[in-house]
């Protein structure tokens, strides 16, 4: 059985507290080394922190330096790292992004495609959206990364499934409000029932300006069973072993993914264009 050992780095992060975030990331990298995991996953924007405020704009350089430092550290590290950070392109646009880092290199970067601008969220004030959803080749197989709101839409996970992802990591910084953890569980399960692959959601913990990031990171197998759940509210390092073969076993008889029809996808695009008019 092919499996992967995932270290869930449910850390407390705070917006602008790059030193504090760095210390908590490094501490959990040590944990991951001790537990001999294959990959350690941190939450959305774990370097710069998530929240609402113009501080995003002020500390992008420091955040990029921390990413460089993590790339350096990964030279002598068995576990790969998946870290949320603020990316910047040559035009000076910022992106809410996540990098997969290993053996002294950045294997790939995903830029959040579905920015959130409703309720307390204000991401479009700061970030440009990503426009592609790719899988990355890793020692354990093709891997997809999504960021938070990306998984509240069916398309990004679907694209990853079409592109052969064997596992999807979802980095999030989800603010608590009543019933939110249950809603998240439902969304993740929906994506898994659609696509039949395992998913790991790593959520931020901690509180800032009265907004609580509820933690409660979740691991699901390809059948949609919730196999691991981290504590609510608290910082925690959790190890999960995930079976990477189950998806293939299930897809022998559950053939819905390959039954997706071109005509219907085209119809979907047509309907969307009509809606836009």
């Amino acid at each position, binding site marked *: 059985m092919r499996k992967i050992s995932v270290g869930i780095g449910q850390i407390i992060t705070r917006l*602008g507290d790059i030193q504090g975030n760095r210390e908590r990331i490094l501490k959990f990298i040590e944990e991951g080394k001790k537990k001999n995991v294959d990959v350690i996953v941190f939450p959305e924007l774990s370097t710069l922190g998530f929240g609402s405020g*113009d501080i995003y704009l002020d500390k992008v350089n420091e955040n990029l330096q921390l990413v460089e430092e993590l790339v350096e550290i990964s030279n002598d590290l068995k576990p790969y790292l998946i870290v949320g950070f603020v990316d910047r392109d040559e035009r000076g646009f910022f992106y809410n992004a996540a990098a997969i880092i290993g053996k002294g290199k950045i294997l790939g970067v995903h830029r959040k495609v579905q920015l959130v601008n409703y309720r307390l969220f204000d991401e479009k004030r700061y970030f440009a959206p990503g426009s592609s959803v790719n899988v990355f080749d890793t020692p354990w197989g093709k891997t997809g990364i999504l960021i938070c709101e990306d998984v509240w839409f069916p398309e990004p996970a679907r694209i990853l499934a079409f592109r052969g992802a064997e596992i999807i990591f979802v980095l999030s910084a989800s603010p608590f409000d*009543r019933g939110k953890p249950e809603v998240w569980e439902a969304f993740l399960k929906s994506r898994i029932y659609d696509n039949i692959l395992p998913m790991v959601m790593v959520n931020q913990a*901690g*509180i*800032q*300006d009265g907004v*609580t990031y509820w933690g409660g990171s979740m691991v699901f197998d390809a059948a949609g069973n919730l196999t691991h759940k981290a504590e609510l509210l608290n910082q925690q390092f959790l190890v999960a072993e995930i079976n990477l073969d189950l998806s293939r076993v299930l897809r022998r008889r559950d053939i819905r993914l390959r039954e997706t029809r071109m005509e219907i996808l085209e119809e979907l695009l047509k309907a969307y264009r009509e809606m836009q008019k």
Partner: protein
Amino acid sequence: MINIKLKNDELELYRKIIVNSIRARIDKIHARGGVVALSGGIDSSLVAVLAKEALGENVLALIMPEEGVSPDSDTNHAIKIVKKFDIPHKIIPINGAIDWFFDIFPEKELSKREVKLALANVKPKIRMIINYLHANLENRIVIGTTNKTELLLGYGTKYGDLAADIYPIADLYKTQVWQLAEHVGIPTEIVRKKPTAGLWKGQTDEEELGHTYQEIDKILYTLVELEFSVKEASEYLGMKEEAIEDIFRRVKMSEHKRKTPTITRLSRMCLDKDWRYPVERY
């Protein structure tokens, strides 16, 4: 669907979140602790207990009765709370300070209703001064005790009891405050008694507002959480449109109590509009 009532696991989670939020502010600004004005009513009792849970010995409850006006039962309840939960406290009657304000007004003006209300509002402001005196002297924050129902209705004194650094229970409706208070072990007699702002003798909130808190919470929940219009809420709740309109008017009129003072914008970096930074800023 009206879903105000919290389940047991939600109450426990809310308790932890509130405790964490108090601690987060204290830790961030390296304050020594917090001060809570404790009337013996349900809101301040709950906040005092949760602040004790968050800060231990570093919370200070200030019991500030207006002797002869604040019911003795309230002061006794406040004392009961600090004893039961072992909360450091001080008792400071405010009569002397109130008398000074009354002395500077000519007798005949005092009969006017507006003056009566304005002077009634002096009392929470005196308590505010005593709160902040302790905060400044001892490097503490002032922990506010308002709840979502009060804050939506504007049922609080601006720069008086509403003056605070954090509002840990202001996203809870009054009836949810009752639930959480019971959950953390506040004695039933305090949870069940008639709420009063204590501005004059014999005042009760429900009489002044014209509805029970159960009714008010249902109306507010329907307008705010379910986002129904007054007409829709009236049909949904089977209540008169005027009653709902009356509540909604209070909500609209009191927006200023939920905001910092409006700045006239002249630059591209207006501090309440363009400039956005967290208070817990790193």
